[in-house]
Protein backbone atom coordinates (compact mmCIF):
# COMPACT_ATOMS: atom_id res chain seq x y z
CA UNK A 1 0.00 0.00 0.00
CA UNK A 2 2.21 2.78 -1.19
CA UNK A 3 0.50 6.09 -0.78
CA UNK A 4 0.05 8.37 -3.77
CA UNK A 5 2.15 11.35 -4.58
CA UNK A 6 1.41 15.01 -5.27
CA UNK A 7 2.78 18.10 -6.84
CA UNK A 8 3.63 21.04 -4.70
CA UNK A 9 1.27 23.96 -4.62
CA UNK A 10 0.60 24.93 -0.99
CA UNK A 11 -3.06 24.08 -1.50
CA UNK A 12 -2.14 20.69 -2.84
CA UNK A 13 0.24 20.07 0.03
CA UNK A 14 -2.57 20.78 2.42
CA UNK A 15 -5.22 18.75 0.65
CA UNK A 16 -2.80 15.88 0.24
CA UNK A 17 -2.08 15.85 3.94
CA UNK A 18 -5.82 15.60 4.38
CA UNK A 19 -6.13 12.60 2.10
CA UNK A 20 -3.46 10.76 4.00
CA UNK A 21 -5.34 11.42 7.19
CA UNK A 22 -8.28 9.33 6.11
CA UNK A 23 -6.46 6.04 6.59
CA UNK A 24 -8.36 4.15 9.17
CA UNK A 25 -7.31 0.95 10.84
CA UNK A 26 -5.66 -0.17 14.05
CA UNK A 27 -3.10 2.38 14.99
CA UNK A 28 -0.20 2.29 12.62
CA UNK A 29 2.38 5.03 12.48
CA UNK A 30 1.49 7.54 9.81
CA UNK A 31 4.36 9.50 8.46
CA UNK A 32 4.35 12.26 5.94
CA UNK A 33 7.48 12.58 3.83
CA UNK A 34 8.37 15.77 2.00
CA UNK A 35 10.70 14.57 -0.73
CA UNK A 36 12.76 16.65 -3.10
CA UNK A 37 11.76 15.73 -6.63
CA UNK A 38 15.35 15.72 -7.91
CA UNK A 39 16.79 13.20 -5.50
CA UNK A 40 14.85 11.60 -2.63
CA UNK A 41 11.70 11.33 -4.66
CA UNK A 42 13.63 9.64 -7.45
CA UNK A 43 15.29 7.54 -4.73
CA UNK A 44 11.86 6.41 -3.60
CA UNK A 45 11.04 5.60 -7.19
CA UNK A 46 14.19 3.57 -7.53
CA UNK A 47 13.38 1.69 -4.34
CA UNK A 48 10.12 0.76 -6.01
CA UNK A 49 11.48 -0.23 -9.41
CA UNK A 50 14.27 -2.25 -7.86
CA UNK A 51 11.72 -4.04 -5.65
CA UNK A 52 13.20 -2.90 -2.37
CA UNK A 53 10.65 -3.54 0.30
CA UNK A 54 9.91 -0.81 2.78
CA UNK A 55 7.15 -0.18 5.28
CA UNK A 56 3.98 1.33 3.84
CA UNK A 57 3.51 3.89 6.56
CA UNK A 58 4.75 6.88 4.63
CA UNK A 59 2.70 9.23 2.50
CA UNK A 60 4.80 11.22 0.09
CA UNK A 61 4.45 14.86 -0.85
CA UNK A 62 6.69 15.79 -3.73
CA UNK A 63 8.41 19.15 -3.32
CA UNK A 64 10.66 20.90 -5.81
CA UNK A 65 13.49 21.08 -3.30
CA UNK A 66 13.97 20.41 0.40
CA UNK A 67 14.40 24.17 0.59
CA UNK A 68 10.69 24.48 -0.22
CA UNK A 69 9.73 22.85 3.04
CA UNK A 70 8.28 25.57 5.19
CA UNK A 71 8.45 24.83 8.94
CA UNK A 72 4.71 25.36 8.75
CA UNK A 73 4.41 22.13 6.69
CA UNK A 74 6.05 20.24 9.52
CA UNK A 75 3.98 21.77 12.29
CA UNK A 76 0.83 21.43 10.25
CA UNK A 77 1.62 17.78 9.66
CA UNK A 78 1.79 17.22 13.39
CA UNK A 79 -1.33 19.29 13.91
CA UNK A 80 -3.21 17.08 11.49
CA UNK A 81 -2.23 14.08 13.50
CA UNK A 82 0.67 12.59 11.56
CA UNK A 83 2.87 10.64 13.90
CA UNK A 84 6.08 11.67 12.19
CA UNK A 85 7.35 14.05 9.55
CA UNK A 86 10.27 13.25 7.27
CA UNK A 87 12.03 15.83 5.15
CA UNK A 88 14.43 14.43 2.62
CA UNK A 89 16.62 16.20 0.10
CA UNK A 90 19.85 16.01 -1.84
CA UNK A 91 23.18 15.47 -0.21
CA UNK A 92 25.07 18.68 0.58
CA UNK A 93 26.65 19.94 -2.58
CA UNK A 94 24.17 18.16 -4.85
CA UNK A 95 21.24 20.57 -4.78
CA UNK A 96 19.69 21.09 -8.19
CA UNK A 97 19.41 24.75 -7.28
CA UNK A 98 22.87 24.90 -5.73
CA UNK A 99 21.91 25.96 -2.22
CA UNK A 100 18.36 24.86 -1.41
CA UNK A 101 19.32 21.97 0.82
CA UNK A 102 21.79 24.08 2.80
CA UNK A 103 19.02 26.50 3.56
CA UNK A 104 16.69 23.65 4.39
CA UNK A 105 19.28 22.28 6.80
CA UNK A 106 19.47 25.52 8.73
CA UNK A 107 15.74 25.86 8.89
CA UNK A 108 15.26 22.24 9.87
CA UNK A 109 17.85 22.48 12.60
CA UNK A 110 16.08 25.31 14.39
CA UNK A 111 12.61 23.94 13.72
CA UNK A 112 13.49 20.56 15.13
CA UNK A 113 15.31 21.86 18.18
CA UNK A 114 12.65 24.46 18.89
CA UNK A 115 9.80 21.99 18.65
CA UNK A 116 11.67 19.64 20.95
CA UNK A 117 11.99 22.47 23.44
CA UNK A 118 8.23 22.88 23.32
CA UNK A 119 7.76 19.23 24.05
CA UNK A 120 7.57 17.44 20.70
CA UNK A 121 9.36 14.09 20.84
CA UNK A 122 12.58 14.27 18.77
CA UNK A 123 11.67 11.12 16.84
CA UNK A 124 8.68 12.83 15.26
CA UNK A 125 10.76 15.18 13.17
CA UNK A 126 13.16 13.40 10.87
CA UNK A 127 15.43 14.39 8.05
CA UNK A 128 17.61 12.58 5.57
CA UNK A 129 19.78 13.10 2.52
CA UNK A 130 18.83 10.53 -0.09
CA UNK A 131 20.08 10.80 -3.66
CA UNK A 132 18.35 9.50 -6.78
CA UNK A 133 20.61 6.46 -6.80
CA UNK A 134 20.02 5.54 -3.16
CA UNK A 135 16.88 3.45 -3.44
CA UNK A 136 18.18 1.11 -0.78
CA UNK A 137 18.94 3.97 1.57
CA UNK A 138 15.47 5.38 1.09
CA UNK A 139 13.92 2.06 2.05
CA UNK A 140 16.16 1.90 5.07
CA UNK A 141 15.31 5.44 6.13
CA UNK A 142 11.59 4.79 5.90
CA UNK A 143 11.92 1.57 7.90
CA UNK A 144 14.03 3.20 10.57
CA UNK A 145 11.80 6.25 10.87
CA UNK A 146 8.71 4.07 11.08
CA UNK A 147 10.29 1.94 13.75
CA UNK A 148 11.28 4.95 15.85
CA UNK A 149 7.88 6.53 15.50
CA UNK A 150 6.19 3.24 16.37
CA UNK A 151 8.22 3.14 19.57
CA UNK A 152 7.04 6.53 20.80
CA UNK A 153 3.47 5.82 19.80
CA UNK A 154 0.60 7.83 18.41
CA UNK A 155 0.84 11.59 18.10
CA UNK A 156 -1.54 13.09 20.61
CA UNK A 157 0.19 16.45 20.77
CA UNK A 158 -2.70 18.49 19.47
CA UNK A 159 -5.48 16.39 20.90
CA UNK A 160 -7.61 18.21 23.42
CA UNK A 161 -7.51 15.23 25.77
CA UNK A 162 -4.02 13.93 25.74
CA UNK A 163 -4.58 10.63 27.47
CA UNK A 164 -8.17 10.18 26.48
CA UNK A 165 -9.44 8.25 23.52
CA UNK A 166 -10.71 11.17 21.47
CA UNK A 167 -8.81 11.40 18.21
CA UNK A 168 -6.81 14.49 17.42
CA UNK A 169 -9.22 16.67 15.54
CA UNK A 170 -7.05 18.11 12.86
CA UNK A 171 -7.37 21.31 10.93
Amino acid sequence: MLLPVVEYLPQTVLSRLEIYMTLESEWEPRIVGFLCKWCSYAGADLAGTSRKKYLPNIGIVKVPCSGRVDPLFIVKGLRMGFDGVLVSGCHPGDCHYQTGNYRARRRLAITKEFLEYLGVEPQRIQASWVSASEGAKFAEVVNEVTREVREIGANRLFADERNGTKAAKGS
Partner: protein
Amino acid sequence: MKEMEQRLQKEARALLEQGKVDYIIGFEPGSLKFTTTPLITKDKEDVERLVINPFIVNNLSVFLTELQGRVGIVVKGCDSRSIVSLIQDNKVVREDVVIIGIPCTGLIDLSKVELVTGKDRDELDDIAWQGDKITVRFDGEEKVFPTEEVLFDNCLGCECPTPQEYDILLGEPRPAAPNLTASRKNLEKLDGMSSEERWDFWKNEFSRCIRCYACRNVCPACFCKRCFVEESEPQWVLPVPRWQDNLIFQVIRNIHVAGRCTDCGECERACPVNIPLRSLSKRMYELVDELFQFKAGMDKDAVPLMTHYELEEAEDFIR
Protein backbone atom coordinates in the same frame (compact mmCIF):
# COMPACT_ATOMS: atom_id res chain seq x y z
CA MET B 1 19.32 60.34 34.08
CA LYS B 2 18.24 63.99 34.29
CA GLU B 3 21.45 65.02 32.50
CA MET B 4 20.86 62.46 29.79
CA GLU B 5 17.34 63.75 29.40
CA GLN B 6 18.48 67.36 29.00
CA ARG B 7 21.11 66.39 26.50
CA LEU B 8 18.55 64.33 24.57
CA GLN B 9 16.17 67.28 24.35
CA LYS B 10 18.98 69.52 23.12
CA GLU B 11 20.20 67.04 20.53
CA ALA B 12 16.69 66.25 19.33
CA ARG B 13 15.89 69.92 18.93
CA ALA B 14 19.09 70.50 17.00
CA LEU B 15 18.41 67.57 14.68
CA LEU B 16 14.96 68.93 13.85
CA GLU B 17 16.14 72.53 13.55
CA GLN B 18 19.03 71.69 11.28
CA GLY B 19 16.75 69.58 9.13
CA LYS B 20 18.85 66.49 9.69
CA VAL B 21 15.75 64.50 10.50
CA ASP B 22 12.06 64.75 9.66
CA TYR B 23 10.88 62.96 12.77
CA ILE B 24 12.02 62.32 16.28
CA ILE B 25 10.87 59.14 17.98
CA GLY B 26 11.38 59.05 21.71
CA PHE B 27 9.48 58.60 24.95
CA GLU B 28 7.21 61.01 26.78
CA PRO B 29 5.53 60.51 30.15
CA GLY B 30 2.55 58.20 29.95
CA SER B 31 -0.86 58.91 31.43
CA LEU B 32 -0.52 56.30 34.17
CA LYS B 33 2.01 56.14 36.95
CA PHE B 34 5.38 54.72 35.98
CA THR B 35 4.60 54.59 32.30
CA THR B 36 5.92 56.24 29.20
CA THR B 37 4.44 56.41 25.75
CA PRO B 38 6.13 56.71 22.38
CA LEU B 39 6.41 60.29 21.17
CA ILE B 40 6.61 60.58 17.40
CA THR B 41 6.91 64.17 16.31
CA LYS B 42 8.00 66.63 13.64
CA ASP B 43 7.59 69.59 15.94
CA LYS B 44 10.68 70.88 17.68
CA GLU B 45 8.62 72.26 20.56
CA ASP B 46 7.56 68.72 21.45
CA VAL B 47 11.11 67.68 22.30
CA GLU B 48 10.71 69.19 25.76
CA ARG B 49 8.43 66.31 26.56
CA LEU B 50 11.13 63.71 25.89
CA VAL B 51 12.09 61.69 28.93
CA ILE B 52 14.53 58.98 29.93
CA ASN B 53 13.67 56.86 32.95
CA PRO B 54 13.57 53.18 33.95
CA PHE B 55 10.10 52.83 32.39
CA ILE B 56 10.96 53.45 28.75
CA VAL B 57 9.88 49.95 27.87
CA ASN B 58 8.89 50.14 24.21
CA ASN B 59 11.20 49.07 21.45
CA LEU B 60 10.69 52.13 19.28
CA SER B 61 12.36 50.63 16.23
CA VAL B 62 8.99 49.03 15.51
CA PHE B 63 7.85 52.42 14.19
CA LEU B 64 10.76 52.85 11.78
CA THR B 65 9.31 50.74 9.01
CA GLU B 66 6.12 52.78 8.88
CA LEU B 67 7.63 56.28 8.72
CA GLN B 68 8.74 58.01 5.54
CA GLY B 69 11.79 60.22 5.66
CA ARG B 70 14.73 60.58 8.00
CA VAL B 71 14.21 59.71 11.61
CA GLY B 72 16.03 60.48 14.82
CA ILE B 73 15.31 57.65 17.20
CA VAL B 74 15.97 57.11 20.89
CA VAL B 75 17.21 53.61 21.60
CA LYS B 76 18.39 51.36 24.38
CA GLY B 77 20.93 48.64 23.73
CA CYS B 78 18.40 45.99 22.73
CA ASP B 79 16.47 48.41 20.50
CA SER B 80 19.63 49.40 18.67
CA ARG B 81 20.20 45.76 17.84
CA SER B 82 16.71 45.61 16.38
CA ILE B 83 17.63 48.53 14.13
CA VAL B 84 20.84 46.80 13.09
CA SER B 85 18.80 43.74 12.28
CA LEU B 86 16.37 45.83 10.22
CA ILE B 87 19.35 47.28 8.35
CA GLN B 88 20.58 43.76 7.63
CA ASP B 89 17.18 42.94 6.19
CA ASN B 90 17.17 46.10 4.05
CA LYS B 91 14.14 47.34 5.92
CA VAL B 92 15.90 50.44 7.15
CA VAL B 93 18.63 52.44 5.45
CA ARG B 94 21.41 53.29 7.90
CA GLU B 95 21.80 56.80 6.49
CA ASP B 96 18.11 57.51 7.06
CA VAL B 97 18.28 57.11 10.81
CA VAL B 98 20.06 59.15 13.41
CA ILE B 99 20.40 56.82 16.34
CA ILE B 100 20.41 58.49 19.72
CA GLY B 101 21.72 55.87 22.11
CA ILE B 102 21.09 55.50 25.81
CA PRO B 103 23.64 53.53 27.80
CA CYS B 104 20.95 51.49 29.53
CA THR B 105 20.94 50.39 33.15
CA GLY B 106 17.92 48.13 32.68
CA LEU B 107 14.22 48.70 33.03
CA ILE B 108 11.92 48.16 35.97
CA ASP B 109 9.34 45.42 35.58
CA LEU B 110 6.23 46.71 37.31
CA SER B 111 4.78 43.21 37.62
CA LYS B 112 7.79 42.25 39.68
CA VAL B 113 7.44 45.36 41.81
CA GLU B 114 3.82 44.42 42.39
CA LEU B 115 4.90 40.94 43.38
CA VAL B 116 7.56 42.01 45.89
CA THR B 117 5.51 44.80 47.42
CA GLY B 118 2.12 43.08 47.29
CA LYS B 119 0.70 46.35 45.97
CA ASP B 120 -0.81 47.25 42.63
CA ARG B 121 1.20 49.69 40.55
CA ASP B 122 -1.21 52.57 41.01
CA GLU B 123 -0.97 52.24 44.78
CA LEU B 124 2.76 52.94 44.79
CA ASP B 125 3.91 56.48 45.44
CA ASP B 126 7.37 56.38 44.04
CA ILE B 127 9.95 54.05 42.52
CA ALA B 128 13.47 55.42 42.59
CA TRP B 129 16.79 54.09 41.45
CA GLN B 130 19.64 54.51 43.88
CA GLY B 131 22.93 52.93 42.95
CA ASP B 132 22.30 49.20 42.68
CA LYS B 133 19.09 49.35 44.68
CA ILE B 134 15.53 50.29 43.91
CA THR B 135 13.56 52.16 46.53
CA VAL B 136 9.81 51.84 46.46
CA ARG B 137 7.58 54.12 48.52
CA PHE B 138 4.02 53.22 49.40
CA ASP B 139 1.63 53.73 52.32
CA GLY B 140 4.19 56.04 53.88
CA GLU B 141 6.68 53.18 53.94
CA GLU B 142 9.94 52.85 52.07
CA LYS B 143 11.23 49.50 50.90
CA VAL B 144 14.53 48.80 49.24
CA PHE B 145 15.04 45.99 46.75
CA PRO B 146 18.14 44.81 44.93
CA THR B 147 17.77 45.60 41.22
CA GLU B 148 17.87 41.89 40.46
CA GLU B 149 14.46 41.49 42.05
CA VAL B 150 12.66 44.15 40.07
CA LEU B 151 14.31 44.46 36.67
CA PHE B 152 12.95 42.67 33.63
CA ASP B 153 14.43 39.20 33.13
CA ASN B 154 15.87 40.15 29.78
CA CYS B 155 17.53 43.24 31.27
CA LEU B 156 19.24 41.05 33.85
CA GLY B 157 20.80 39.03 31.07
CA CYS B 158 21.52 42.03 28.86
CA GLU B 159 24.58 41.54 26.68
CA CYS B 160 24.44 44.94 25.14
CA PRO B 161 23.53 47.80 27.53
CA THR B 162 25.28 50.29 25.27
CA PRO B 163 23.67 50.56 21.87
CA GLN B 164 25.46 48.53 19.25
CA GLU B 165 25.07 51.23 16.67
CA TYR B 166 24.63 54.93 17.40
CA ASP B 167 25.32 58.41 16.13
CA ILE B 168 24.91 60.18 19.43
CA LEU B 169 25.51 58.49 22.77
CA LEU B 170 23.93 60.17 25.78
CA GLY B 171 26.54 59.25 28.35
CA GLU B 172 29.41 56.89 28.88
CA PRO B 173 29.28 53.40 27.37
CA ARG B 174 28.32 50.77 29.92
CA PRO B 175 30.05 47.43 30.10
CA ALA B 176 27.86 44.36 29.81
CA ALA B 177 27.40 42.29 32.95
CA PRO B 178 24.86 39.65 32.04
CA ASN B 179 23.49 37.59 34.89
CA LEU B 180 22.48 34.52 32.95
CA THR B 181 21.03 32.59 35.88
CA ALA B 182 18.70 35.40 36.83
CA SER B 183 17.59 36.03 33.27
CA ARG B 184 16.98 32.34 32.58
CA LYS B 185 14.90 31.67 35.67
CA ASN B 186 11.72 30.85 33.76
CA LEU B 187 13.56 28.84 31.16
CA GLU B 188 15.34 26.81 33.76
CA LYS B 189 12.02 25.60 35.12
CA LEU B 190 11.14 24.37 31.65
CA ASP B 191 14.52 22.74 31.15
CA GLY B 192 13.83 20.63 34.20
CA MET B 193 10.58 19.25 32.80
CA SER B 194 9.95 16.20 30.64
CA SER B 195 8.79 16.79 27.07
CA GLU B 196 5.30 15.85 28.04
CA GLU B 197 5.26 18.28 30.94
CA ARG B 198 6.65 21.02 28.74
CA TRP B 199 4.01 20.46 26.08
CA ASP B 200 1.27 20.49 28.68
CA PHE B 201 2.73 23.67 30.13
CA TRP B 202 2.54 25.46 26.78
CA LYS B 203 -0.86 23.99 26.03
CA ASN B 204 -2.12 25.51 29.25
CA GLU B 205 -0.43 28.85 28.66
CA PHE B 206 -1.72 29.17 25.11
CA SER B 207 -5.25 28.31 26.09
CA ARG B 208 -5.38 31.84 27.54
CA CYS B 209 -4.28 33.58 24.35
CA ILE B 210 -6.93 35.87 22.88
CA ARG B 211 -5.05 36.46 19.61
CA CYS B 212 -4.72 40.20 20.02
CA TYR B 213 -1.43 39.97 18.15
CA ALA B 214 0.22 42.47 20.47
CA CYS B 215 3.27 40.18 20.64
CA ARG B 216 3.59 40.37 16.89
CA ASN B 217 2.79 44.04 16.54
CA VAL B 218 5.26 45.28 19.15
CA CYS B 219 7.99 43.17 17.59
CA PRO B 220 10.33 45.04 15.25
CA ALA B 221 11.42 41.72 13.76
CA CYS B 222 7.84 40.95 12.72
CA PHE B 223 7.76 43.28 9.75
CA CYS B 224 5.75 41.23 7.25
CA LYS B 225 3.07 43.26 5.54
CA ARG B 226 0.79 40.30 5.80
CA CYS B 227 1.24 37.67 8.47
CA PHE B 228 0.90 33.98 7.65
CA VAL B 229 -1.94 33.67 10.17
CA GLU B 230 -3.95 36.08 8.08
CA GLU B 231 -3.68 33.89 5.01
CA SER B 232 -6.89 32.12 4.16
CA GLU B 233 -5.83 30.37 0.93
CA PRO B 234 -4.61 27.93 2.15
CA GLN B 235 -5.64 28.41 5.72
CA TRP B 236 -2.76 27.04 7.75
CA VAL B 237 -3.94 28.45 11.02
CA LEU B 238 -7.44 29.54 11.93
CA PRO B 239 -7.83 33.01 13.43
CA VAL B 240 -9.83 31.29 16.15
CA PRO B 241 -8.03 31.41 19.52
CA ARG B 242 -7.96 27.70 20.19
CA TRP B 243 -4.82 26.65 21.98
CA GLN B 244 -3.65 24.56 19.05
CA ASP B 245 -3.82 27.43 16.62
CA ASN B 246 -2.35 29.85 19.14
CA LEU B 247 0.58 27.57 19.72
CA ILE B 248 1.27 27.06 16.02
CA PHE B 249 1.10 30.81 15.50
CA GLN B 250 3.68 31.39 18.18
CA VAL B 251 5.98 28.56 17.07
CA ILE B 252 6.08 29.79 13.51
CA ARG B 253 6.40 33.40 14.59
CA ASN B 254 9.45 32.48 16.60
CA ILE B 255 10.94 30.56 13.69
CA HIS B 256 10.31 33.58 11.45
CA VAL B 257 12.16 35.91 13.77
CA ALA B 258 15.03 33.53 14.47
CA GLY B 259 18.21 35.51 13.98
CA ARG B 260 16.24 38.74 14.21
CA CYS B 261 15.03 38.52 17.79
CA THR B 262 17.32 40.49 20.07
CA ASP B 263 15.68 39.36 23.31
CA CYS B 264 14.19 42.80 23.96
CA GLY B 265 11.33 41.09 25.81
CA GLU B 266 8.59 43.25 24.32
CA CYS B 267 6.40 40.30 23.31
CA GLU B 268 6.14 39.05 26.86
CA ARG B 269 5.65 42.50 28.31
CA ALA B 270 2.90 43.38 25.86
CA CYS B 271 0.93 40.18 26.40
CA PRO B 272 -2.25 41.12 28.27
CA VAL B 273 -2.81 37.60 29.55
CA ASN B 274 0.71 37.01 30.89
CA ILE B 275 1.88 34.24 28.59
CA PRO B 276 5.62 33.83 29.25
CA LEU B 277 6.54 34.42 25.62
CA ARG B 278 10.12 35.29 26.37
CA SER B 279 10.66 31.70 27.47
CA LEU B 280 10.14 30.88 23.82
CA SER B 281 11.94 33.74 22.17
CA LYS B 282 14.93 33.54 24.48
CA ARG B 283 15.29 29.83 23.75
CA MET B 284 15.26 30.55 20.05
CA TYR B 285 17.85 33.25 20.65
CA GLU B 286 20.05 30.73 22.42
CA LEU B 287 19.49 28.06 19.79
CA VAL B 288 20.60 30.34 17.01
CA ASP B 289 23.72 31.12 18.97
CA GLU B 290 24.45 27.47 19.83
CA LEU B 291 23.87 26.15 16.33
CA PHE B 292 25.19 28.96 14.17
CA GLN B 293 27.13 31.23 16.54
CA PHE B 294 24.85 34.06 15.51
CA LYS B 295 23.54 36.87 17.65
CA ALA B 296 20.93 39.11 16.12
CA GLY B 297 21.67 42.74 15.43
CA MET B 298 25.32 42.86 16.41
CA ASP B 299 26.79 43.71 13.02
CA LYS B 300 24.97 45.70 10.38
CA ASP B 301 27.07 44.18 7.61
CA ALA B 302 26.33 40.60 8.62
CA VAL B 303 24.17 38.53 6.30
CA PRO B 304 20.75 37.73 7.78
CA LEU B 305 20.89 34.32 9.43
CA MET B 306 18.25 32.55 7.42
CA THR B 307 19.36 33.76 4.01
CA HIS B 308 22.77 32.31 4.57
CA TYR B 309 24.48 28.98 5.28
CA GLU B 310 27.89 27.48 5.90
CA LEU B 311 29.05 24.42 3.99
CA GLU B 312 29.70 22.59 7.21
CA GLU B 313 27.23 23.05 9.99
CA ALA B 314 24.84 21.32 12.38
CA GLU B 315 23.51 18.25 10.60
CA ASP B 316 23.97 15.34 12.96
CA PHE B 317 20.19 15.02 13.08
CA ILE B 318 20.07 14.22 9.37
CA ARG B 319 20.31 10.60 8.32
